[in-house]
């Protein structure tokens, strides 16, 4: 049977719309459907939940579709284009630009709009809403000339908005009409605990405060008047009192809407028109609108499933919430107000630390019905699934919230228990991932579970639960969590590192003879080479270590697919003189190398054959360049912006610091590659928070962030310490890097290390800043040792005949180029020609992604 292709039109490209398209592609809906997406905003979908971080990270970081289009030609994404009418009889939509598109199925994901209460003065200049990146840009612009900002609304969104206003440096007020903050999620005592936390940050909270009007002079906001209270003088007002489903299009074409707004849909998310579906915040399943992203995602999946002929239903959603508001953990789930007849409350409150926890249990104290956690939400991962699944409570339920209580017992979760509610992953799914199958080996760490099941990849609150499940499951299966490096060493990298240090071992041969078996392999040899390099000042191509190095280190270049290498001279901080630039250009021209600018602000020269490397480097060294260590598990670059020197906004000299740091840590061997960044102001043009260490200038000094990276599993660096002077910054960085080098696993980047180390960032901070282990002086001394012993690997190689002897194409024909290497010209430069003798595509048997691509 053949099918004609059908067309689906999706209105709205927010988080839920994006999820719908993703699911449509992943589940094969696009095999039979063409999908046309109209997004009203100028940007593709972005993470609105993390909107507050926009000021820190910028729009690009928030984007859910950084490429701007889907990797499926059957999906057409049209942005900045509103749909103006739906003609249900003709099954056509018309856009603001006049385009008419026929549909076989229509999905509305139009989201919601902020509700602005009908207050006098709400149209004055200086009044804003908080919903889109454009809104935040407007607020930021207005904040430049403002000193005070008021947020109307003390709910979830209002507090997010207050955080944004606070971040912009304004004196911030939150005005909430209800007698407490987050009135939907918290009770009076929980709200009060939250107020104490937030006021400690310098935000003023007004509860039980009904706004009467917004006052203004010359069309600009000047103050807010509140019933029975003093007015608040302000330059800026942000409305954040709630949302209204965006259902105008549906109303206009006669689709049924719910009494309180929202497009009425059945459990398959279908509207009163059989060809039209609605999902996300614009939809009202059973008359109820869900203002959270997780239910929206669920609805998107249901519609894709139904279009594929499945039987998925949306039957309501867990409205549990856990978030970090201005650094305060807040969680709320289930029957928070003990509305169930006969229910009992168990409360723990510590006014000193500002921790408030409440459990609502059934009258016989056997079942958990709901709860509130403020100040410490670590038990959320355990508690929330207990509500959803109806697991019986343990004997002493108060243990679950008492500070001494472990709060982590996996109290009889069933396989159906949902562990990750963002991605709807059950315990059963996670356990199967741990157990593995014939096709796929089981997971032995949290990172693997995350990539296999998606659990813990959205809000992360279930990660502790996942971790416990993993440990429990492996233990019961008799699988040990082995930390053996490989078959030759029954110990972890950290243990090897300590052994080498304590016993002053200086060669692989001595180490494996005394503490290992066999002759080593491609896993332990480079790891030990790196450990030796971190502890000694020997050249990595010295007699004892040359055979241990991966080919990149062995030839001080980056191996490319045709067997040639790429060459990257160091350009500290990305600062390059015209003469230097010309010198690099001349070398590239004379050796006919392909040149490309790297993401690390330097220049990569490709296509160098082994025997050409010394000739190329002779020229580069003569021109004043040194190895850029692009080939090593070592410091790559410290990226910078131009900073105060040139930039109108810069507040410190970021380039100077970046150069200083790059020169300080160059050549430092580490468990994985290391990248740094320095930005001269909070605009963060150097993308420092995408680096293993990032420094951002403030008026008062430097803020230090650690644990960021791009790549396969991007991570955002987190704050380690703020407002540091340069000397302190360097001291902390010395300690941080050396502590990482001492304790991380092989090929573990700083982000994964921070995740895996017991105690996480707080522990690392206590070691680096507070020196709780008393090792700070040692760490600094180690770093001083490295800096003192640094030598340019390429200059040293060029000066050593024995090392140079290895840089030949053939031992019996040193200058004969490898005859199988050939190039063709593309866009005016060389590129490798197709692999020799391969009419068929090149075989890459390994399904794994090679680690350690250059830069």
């Amino acid at each position, binding site marked *: 049977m053949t099918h004609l292709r059908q067309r689906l039109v999706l209105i709205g490209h927010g988080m839920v719309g994006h999820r719908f398209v993703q699911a449509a592609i992943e589940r094969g809906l696009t095999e039979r459907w063409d999908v046309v997406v109209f997004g009203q905003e100028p940007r593709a979908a972005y993470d609105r939940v993390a909107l507050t971080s926009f000021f820190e990270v910028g729009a690009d970081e928030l984007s859910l579709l950084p490429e701007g289009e889907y990797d499926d030609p059957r999906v057409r994404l049209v942005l900045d284009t509103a749909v103006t009418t739906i003609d249900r009889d003709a099954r056509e939509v018309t856009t603001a630009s006049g385009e008419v598109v026929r549909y076989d199925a229509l999905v509305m994901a139009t989201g919601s709009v902020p509700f602005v209460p009908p207050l006098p003065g709400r149209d004055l200049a200086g009044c804003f809403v908080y919903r889109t990146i454009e809104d935040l840009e407007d607020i930021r612009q207005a904040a430049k000339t403002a000193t005070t900002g008021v947020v109307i609304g003390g709910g979830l969104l209002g507090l997010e908005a207050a955080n944004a206003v606070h971040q912009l440096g304004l004196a911030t007020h939150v005005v909430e009409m209800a007698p407490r903050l987050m009135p939907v999620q918290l009770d009076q005592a929980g709200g009060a605990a939250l107020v104490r936390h937030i006021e400690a940050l310098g935000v003023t909270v007004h509860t039980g405060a009904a706004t009467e009007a917004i006052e203004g002079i010359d069309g600009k906001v000047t103050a807010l008047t509140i019933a029975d209270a003093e007015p608040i003088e302000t330059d800026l007002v942000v409305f954040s009192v709630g949302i209204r489903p965006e259902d105008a299009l549906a109303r206009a074409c006669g689709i049924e809407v719910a009494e309180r707004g929202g497009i009425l849909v059945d459990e398959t998310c279908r509207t009163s028109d059989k060809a039209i579906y609605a999902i996300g915040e614009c939809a009202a399943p059973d008359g109820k609108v869900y203002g959270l992203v997780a239910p929206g995602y669920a609805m998107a999946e249901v519609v894709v499933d139904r279009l594929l002929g499945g039987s998925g239903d949306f039957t309501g959603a867990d409205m549990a919430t856990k978030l970090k508001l201005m650094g305060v953990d807040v969680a709320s789930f289930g029957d928070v107000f003990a509305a169930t007849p006969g229910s009992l409350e168990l409360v723990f409150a510590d006014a000193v630390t500002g921790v408030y926890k409440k459990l609502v249990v059934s009258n016989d104290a056997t079942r958990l019905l709901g709860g509130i956690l403020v100040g410490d939400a670590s038990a959320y991962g355990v508690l929330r699934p207990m509500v959803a699944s109806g697991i019986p409570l343990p004997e002493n339920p108060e243990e679950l919230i008492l500070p001494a209580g472990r709060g982590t017992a996996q109290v009889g979760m069933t396989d159906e228990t949902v562990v990750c509610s963002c991605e709807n992953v059950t315990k059963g799914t996670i356990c199967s991932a741990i157990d593995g199958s014939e096709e796929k080996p089981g997971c032995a760490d949290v990172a693997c579970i995350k990539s296999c099941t998606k659990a813990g990849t959205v809000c992360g609150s279930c990660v502790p639960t996942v971790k416990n499940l993993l440990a429990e499951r492996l233990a019961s299966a008799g699988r040990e969590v082995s930390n053996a490096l490989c078959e030759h060493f029954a110990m972890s990298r950290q243990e090897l590192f300590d052994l080498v240090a304590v016993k002053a071992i200086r060669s692989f041969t001595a180490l494996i003879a005394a503490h290992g078996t066999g002759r080593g392999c*491609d896993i332990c*040899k480079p790891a030990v080479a790196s450990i030796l390099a971190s502890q000694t000042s020997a050249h990595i191509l010295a007699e004892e270590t040359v055979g241990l190095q991966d080919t990149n280190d062995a030839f001080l270049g980056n191996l490319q697919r045709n067997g040639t290498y790429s060459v990257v001279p160091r350009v500290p901080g990305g600062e390059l003189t015209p003469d230097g630039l010309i010198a690099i250009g001349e070398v590239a021209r004379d050796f006919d190398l392909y040149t490309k600018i790297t993401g690390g602000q330097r220049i990569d020269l490709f296509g160098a054959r082994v025997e050409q490397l010394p000739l190329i480097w002779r020229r580069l060294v003569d021109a004043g360049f040194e190895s850029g260590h692009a080939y090593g598990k070592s410091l790559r670059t410290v990226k910078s912006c131009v900073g105060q020197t040139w930039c109108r906004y810069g507040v410190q000299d970021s380039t100077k610091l970046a150069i200083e740091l790059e020169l300080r840590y160059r050549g430092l061997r580490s468990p994985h590659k290391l990248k740094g960044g320095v930005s001269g102001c909070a605009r963060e043009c150097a993308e420092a928070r995408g680096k293993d260490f990032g420094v951002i200038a403030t008026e008062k000094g430097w803020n230090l962030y650690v644990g960021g990276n791009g790549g396969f599993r991007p991570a955002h660096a987190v704050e380690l310490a703020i407002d540091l002077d340069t000397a302190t910054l360097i001291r902390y960085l010395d300690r941080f890097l050396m502590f990482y080098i001492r304790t991380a696993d092989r090929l573990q980047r700083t982000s994964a290390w921070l995740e895996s180390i017991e105690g996480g960032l707080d522990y690392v901070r206590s070691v680096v800043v507070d020196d709780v282990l008393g090792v700070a002086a040692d760490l600094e001394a180690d770093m001083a040792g490295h800096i003192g012993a640094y030598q340019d690997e390429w200059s040293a190689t060029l000066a050593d005949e024995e090392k140079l002897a290895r840089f030949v194409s053939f031992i019996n024909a040193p200058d004969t180029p490898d005859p199988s290497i050939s190039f063709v010209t593309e866009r005016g430069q060389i590129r490798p020609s197709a692999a020799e003798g391969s009419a068929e595509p090149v075989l890459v048997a390994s399904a794994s992604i090679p680690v350690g691509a250059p830069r």
Partner: protein
Amino acid sequence: MMAGTKVRQETVRQGIWVSVCRVDQLRVDVGVAALVGGEQVALFRLDAEEITAIGNLDPYSRANVLSRGIVGSRGDTVFVASPMYKQPFDLRTGCCLDDPAVSVPTFDVRVLDGVVQVLAPPVSDGPDG
């Protein structure tokens, strides 16, 4: 033949012995490439006594790079891991340890008066006969 030097010679093969280097130019567990009668060969010295040679062409990446891999052991098997995508090849048999269907050619090696020689296969025939 140098006293005490063992060479691998399982089958009698035809060809010409080509001298490629002095034995003291080879370091244990550090491969080198050689051109032997138009063939690209990767030579490895496993210890004081044993030297092996396999084709330098990595069948997975189709680049001539095996001589630049790291030498290691799995049990008693000594292998080189391709520097490109890490597949291990048995240095004595040429077999890929992760996929028995894939192998690289092997070459006979001998040491004569301190000079390493590789048996270049006849031009008309493949390296493994």
